[in-house]
């Protein structure tokens, strides 16, 4: 490319970057805290409820996770969770309800191509990377822990 033209395009790209509307970080962080916090508070109530029913804390926390996943799925089906995400950003994405939303929203979206090739194949298009890198990082951290604690001697 002609260097003058390249310089012009570079100048334009820089101008776009400079003129882009900046998100309000303070507002976004506050909203993420509030939305994420509200979800976690709800999770705490659910956990306290199940602690009275289950024998051990581990069992109570397992069923709490299942309940939160269920609630996330319901909120997605009702068309509420995407609004929460718009408002709270990572506050809605990070809790397990967000993970549930990523699977259910994809399942809803692709159901119309059939249960096998549509929903079955594409249900994990969004959640897939979370699983892949979640498992991979879990393995690596476990490996480091194992080496440090001397399990491989």
């Amino acid at each position, binding site marked *: 490319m002609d260097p003058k033209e390249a310089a012009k*395009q*570079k100048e*334009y*790209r820089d*101008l*776009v970057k400079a*003129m*882009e*509307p900046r*998100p309000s970080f303070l507002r*976004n962080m506050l909203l993420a805290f509030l939305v994420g916090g509200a979800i976690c508070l709800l999770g705490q109530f659910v956990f306290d409820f199940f602690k009275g029913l289950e024998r051990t804390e581990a069992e109570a926390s397992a069923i709490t996770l299942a309940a939160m996943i269920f609630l996330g799925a319901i909120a*997605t*089906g009702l*068309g509420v*969770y*995407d609004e*929460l*995400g*718009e408002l*709270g*950003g990572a506050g*809605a*994405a990070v809790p397990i309800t*967000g993970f549930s*939303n*990523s699977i*259910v*929203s*994809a399942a*809803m*979206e*692709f159901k*119309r191509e059939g249960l096998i090739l549509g929903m079955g194949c594409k249900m994990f298009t*969004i959640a897939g990377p979370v699983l892949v890198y979640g498992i991979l990082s879990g393995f690596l951290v476990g490996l480091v822990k194992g080496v440090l604690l001397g399990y491989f001697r």
Partner: protein
Amino acid sequence: MAVKRQGLGTIAFSSPPHIIAASTIVGPREGEGPLAASFDTVTKTDLYGEKTPEKAEYRLLEEACQGALTKAKLEAGDIHYYLGGDLLNQIVTSSFVARQLGIPYLGLYAACATIGEGLALGAMIIDGGFADKVLVGAASHYHTAERQFRYPVELNIQHRGTNQTTVTGAGAAILASSGQGPRVTQATLGKVVDYGLKDANDLGSAMAPAAADTLVRHFQDTGTTPGDYDLILTGDLARMGSKMFHKLLQDAGYVLGGKHQDAGLLIFSPQQKAGAGGSGAGCIASVLFGHVLKEMYQGRYHKILVLPTGALFSPLTCQQGESIPCIAHALVIEEG
């Protein structure tokens, strides 16, 4: 000798075709916007009673085409060619409509600029003496575009201020060698312009250089300035793209001022939380064939320049790190 060419690349039609009828249909969200009264039909739901949004999109375009035929008191058989396009892979929506219409069909793709390509080609076909009546149409649907270009609709995503909202809607018009209605007098077809922008969340800024390139070439070819037009309508640069477009035009020595409007900014009000504005092949099509043509019929506009813009990328090329090539076609429409 190409006798109908003016300047380096503008076409001046010797017997400019008339837009004898046009019809529009939009979804519920667009029907709540500022232009609500200008559309022929506003559907009650996004799905429009269909099982899939793809089917809904197909019905929108079909009904827009039928609406234009009805207004012109014509049957599909009276039309010599149908030129249509949409955003979906393999432009299925328009092809499905063509299957229904049974008219010789040319499928077009220029993303959101599709209707511009259709009008220019339709006018060339008629002015060239190859047809008397040509039907042009374009459609888009929020749900079908989201899933193809972005994410599932119900996914928790925080949109950025530069994100545009795909319009659910369709517009169709009939161009004819004789009759009543505004005339397509000139066309400047766009080059693919790519300033190396890669952000699919800000297509307005990517498309602005293409729009500016075509418009400046048009001004140079025809010796006109923004003052010669009652309206310069882009579609759809939206808020961010419009800002950049004004800046680029200013650098080239043209001040647009209040002459410029953008279909993406007209169709939604800021209260509708549609991000930077509307987009999609159905946006400029429904705004031009609804609101703008009605203003022309009422004598508010006499000579306008329409500049539909399209981002010619695919999600695949974006993920592979390619920049976004863009195009814009300019059309001059004058009262008939």
